[in-house]
């Protein structure tokens, strides 16, 4: 719940703030967003399974985003679509994390 609330507030703040990043950075930011989403899902999962660690989360959140954007940039320069690697890895992990979250939530609901 808290994640959706944060997302909503973030979206509203973004609209009010009204900054646009230059178009040429747009694809890198997209990959970075994917990495960030993955970290958020990972955090929710860790929270549900009670092994959340703040330092790991923060380093993962920013590190993954930076690495994904950097790889996408590097791929662009080299002419290889490396961003696909980031998309596949983070996309797969998001689904994985979501599956685990789902399972944990349903088990919690059943055990109640």
């Amino acid at each position, binding site marked *: 719940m*808290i*994640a*959706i*609330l*944060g*997302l*909503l*507030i*973030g*979206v*509203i*703040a*973004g*609209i009010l*703030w009204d*900054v*646009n*990043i230059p*178009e040429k950075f*747009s694809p890198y*930011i*997209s990959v*970075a*967003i994917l990495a*960030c*989403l993955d*970290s*958020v899902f990972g*955090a*929710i999962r*860790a*929270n549900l399974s*009670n092994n*959340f660690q*703040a330092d790991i*989360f*923060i380093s993962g*959140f920013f590190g993954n985003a930076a690495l994904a954007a950097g790889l996408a940039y590097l791929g662009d320069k080299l002419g290889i679509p490396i961003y696909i690697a980031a998309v596949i890895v983070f996309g797969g992990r998001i689904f994985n994390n979501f599956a685990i979250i789902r399972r944990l939530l349903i088990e919690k609901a059943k055990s109640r």
Partner: protein
Amino acid sequence: MKGYETKIFVFIASFIVGILIVMNISFKPTEQTKFLTAEEYMDAINERSKLANDINLLRQQYAANYSKYQQYMENASNPSDSLKIIESMEKELARNRALVGIEAVEGQGVSITIDDSIELHLNNQLSDFETNSKIVHNTDIIELLYQLNLAGAEAISVNGMRIMSNSEVACAGPFIVINDVKLTAPFHIDAIGNSQSIKEYLYAQDSHIGILSTLTNPFRNLYVDFQIQERVKIPAYIGNYDFKYAKEVKNN
């Protein structure tokens, strides 16, 4: 306490993600780049130059109208000069009427008379086909009018019928109908314009063959009298020249 900490972190993280998403989506309509084919590019260039031309023309029109307006305003303060304004307006109106054709005009030009061939009366051995070729047809008159316009004629009349933008030249048996009036041969065509160039154009014999050369050749052998006149008077159009369906375009 630990769950609380997690919530704060997740909240901050999702807040950042939300901002990033909005930054990336951007709800503003972005300018879309469009790739043009060579043809579309040419069209666009043509359109642009056409619009530039239009703008130029409108500017010139504006300048002319503005100077006229200035003149009116200057004269308006002085009551004796208001007569001058009316005079210049009337001059303009008369010029427009002459241009349109509802006013008689005169000037140097040519008068042409065309009649059926005299062979019709002398020779009764002609076949139908030959007889047909010795008669003045409405198509001859139409072609003559076109060539007069091409040669730069400014006003034309046929047997006193002013040729207007709506004038028809129709065949009606032994008659030719112009401006709803039935006319018979001989046809007197008056035209105002540069008489020398009209003569050269109508009698041309090179790549372009003038209509009068065609009419006077031995096959047609029509009676053609061509005269250069110092003063040709072209009467005004008689008839109704109202628009029923056409409407003025505003903001033209």
